[in-house]
């Protein structure tokens, strides 16, 4: 295994080949600070057609990045939504032009806490401004401008991607012809905040973290970050799904070891996921992005609440939830549907029955993928007709 310093060097080298734009326009953040001349990394798949009516914007989740499908050039692993996006897939890149940007606050090329602070030429660390979902979305709107796309055929995203999407629709009501928020919420619940706090405290309890100053020492608080990831992984599965996948099965052994090694498969799984994660993600980014999620409360931004947020929407929505998702429950997703309905928006809703929990949107769930495909394809026909008229 390469040393962490070597790893960072390797990652930085790969980063040179990432598509980026520099956003010159100053972006006033919700926290009051302003950033300007900052990088936004993105990736596109498929081709934008002549009429520019086949563009689909994908918003990624907490630990995602712009590499939606194909092979992620930094990790050499499959893109995070390879099940849904690609040639012939539900979001067919032979037909549609798919765009995804790394969120600001992230660590895959967009402005984030591991970047250099121009004020002191040191890595930002905790001097990085606290960002919100709205800040992320505003930055990505600049990318659409850069790509010359006036109106998207569709915008979609699951989990935090869905929250960005709701924010995007509320802030820019005419930018998307259709929208598919998946397994998300219009505001973070107490349980969501508690789980994020657990992840943050795990990172902060790691002495290597050192108040976020680890970056200049070329190290990473990997123990804390791994635990943070483990918390996440538990919340992405369901009780039933986990029991079916692991049960009490032992990890390559016939009996208990009477030690604290990973006896159980579920322990081994969590350790593997946790420590694989530290190789591709920055601990401070987790702090900043989880904070952005916690601060997300769309109804708080509008007097009159969520119904007001979706007023004057021409966007056609399809909200999708998963029956066993306890992180962003069917009820939370339905509340979005109710608000959209009350505001008179065009909204469809489907609850996919599955044991796979919150993770379902990333997995090969045939009913989910069929519904997604059916919606996007029918929207494309409508959008083309509307443009013609």
């Amino acid at each position, binding site marked *: 295994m390469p040393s962490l310093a070597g790893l960072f060097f390797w990652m930085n080298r790969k980063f040179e080949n990432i598509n980026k734009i520099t956003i010159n326009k100053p972006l006033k953040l919700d926290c009051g600070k302003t950033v300007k001349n900052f990088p936004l990394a993105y990736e596109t798949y498929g081709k934008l057609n002549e009429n520019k009516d086949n563009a689909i914007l994908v918003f990624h989740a907490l630990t995602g990045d712009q590499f939606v499908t194909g092979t992620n050039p930094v990790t050499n692993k499959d893109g995070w939504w390879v099940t849904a996006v690609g040639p012939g897939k539900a979001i067919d890149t032979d037909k549609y032009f798919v765009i995804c940007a790394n969120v600001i606050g992230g660590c895959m090329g967009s402005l984030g806490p591991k970047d250099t602070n121009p004020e002191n030429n040191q890595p930002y660390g905790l001097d990085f401004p606290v960002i919100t979902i709205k800040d992320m979305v505003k930055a990505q709107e600049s990318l659409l401008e850069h790509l010359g796309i006036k109106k998207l055929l569709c915008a979609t995203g699951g989990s935090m991607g869905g929250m960005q999407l709701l924010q995007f629709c509320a802030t820019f009501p005419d930018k998307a012809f259709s929208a598919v928020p998946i397994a998300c919420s219009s505001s973070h619940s107490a349980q969501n905040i508690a789980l994020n706090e657990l992840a943050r405290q795990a990172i902060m309890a790691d002495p290597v973290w050192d108040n976020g100053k680890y970056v200049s020492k070329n190290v990473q608080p990997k123990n804390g970050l791994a635990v943070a990831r483990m918390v996440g992984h538990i919340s992405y599965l369901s009780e039933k799904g986990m029991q079916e996948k692991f049960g009490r099965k032992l990890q390559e052994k016939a009996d208990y070891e009477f030690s604290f090694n990973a006896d159980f498969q579920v322990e081994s799984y969590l350790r593997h996921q946790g420590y694989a994660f530290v190789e591709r993600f920055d601990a401070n980014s987790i702090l900043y992005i989880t904070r952005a999620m916690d601060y997300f409360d769309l109804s708080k931004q509008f007097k009159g609440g969520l119904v007001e947020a979706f007023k004057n929407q021409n966007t*056609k929505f*399809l909200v999708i939830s998963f029956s066993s998702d306890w992180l962003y429950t069917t009820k939370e997703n*339905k509340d979005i*549907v*109710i608000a959209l*309905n*009350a505001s*008179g928006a*065009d*909204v*469809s*809703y*489907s*609850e*996919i*029955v599955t044991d796979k929990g919150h993770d379902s949107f990333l997995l090969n769930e045939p*009913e989910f993928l*069929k*519904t997604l495909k*059916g*919606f996007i*394809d*029918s*929207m494309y*026909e*409508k959008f083309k007709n509307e443009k013609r008229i």
Partner: protein
Amino acid sequence: MKKEFKVIADLLPNNSRVLDVGCGDGSLMNFLKEEKNIEVRGLELNQENVQKCINKGLPVIQGNAETELHQFPNQSFDYVVLSQTLQAFYEPEKVLKNLLRIGKAVIVSIPNFGYWKVRVKLLFFGEMPVTKTLPNTWYNTPNLHMCTIKDLFNFCDEKNINIKKVVGVSEDKTSLIKKSNLEIKNLFSKLGIFLIG
């Protein structure tokens, strides 16, 4: 039943806003959209049907009309349509009141248990009737509260629900039903379509 669609479409003005409760695979929604340029929304319980509607580009919400009508605001639709499902609810009265709250008017169609073939089956054979409009047997029927056109007529009277129009559908004929011809129409109509509210 295409005839039923035609009657419902004739009751609806062009360009109105309609909620189809229990919209199935969206056939009626599609028909209304194409015939009368009606802005339709559907509510449907069955996953497969929901998917069919979505594939057709029809807005549909997956949910149970018995428990989830509360999500639609008061008077948010010009019309609410309930096609041949009233009898399948646990509490049809509650559902009907909800529909009247959501729509400025409501169209309800029911398979008529007073239809002569149904009566004959029960009276002379002593068996629960199985017909085209009532295709299930007693043990697998979803219908919990069968009623006749006359029953629904009386129900509306009792509950002070304004009946605007009632249309009876027999083989391929439709006819207006009034208090004066109720007895005879209740015998010869397979289906009753009520415009109320």
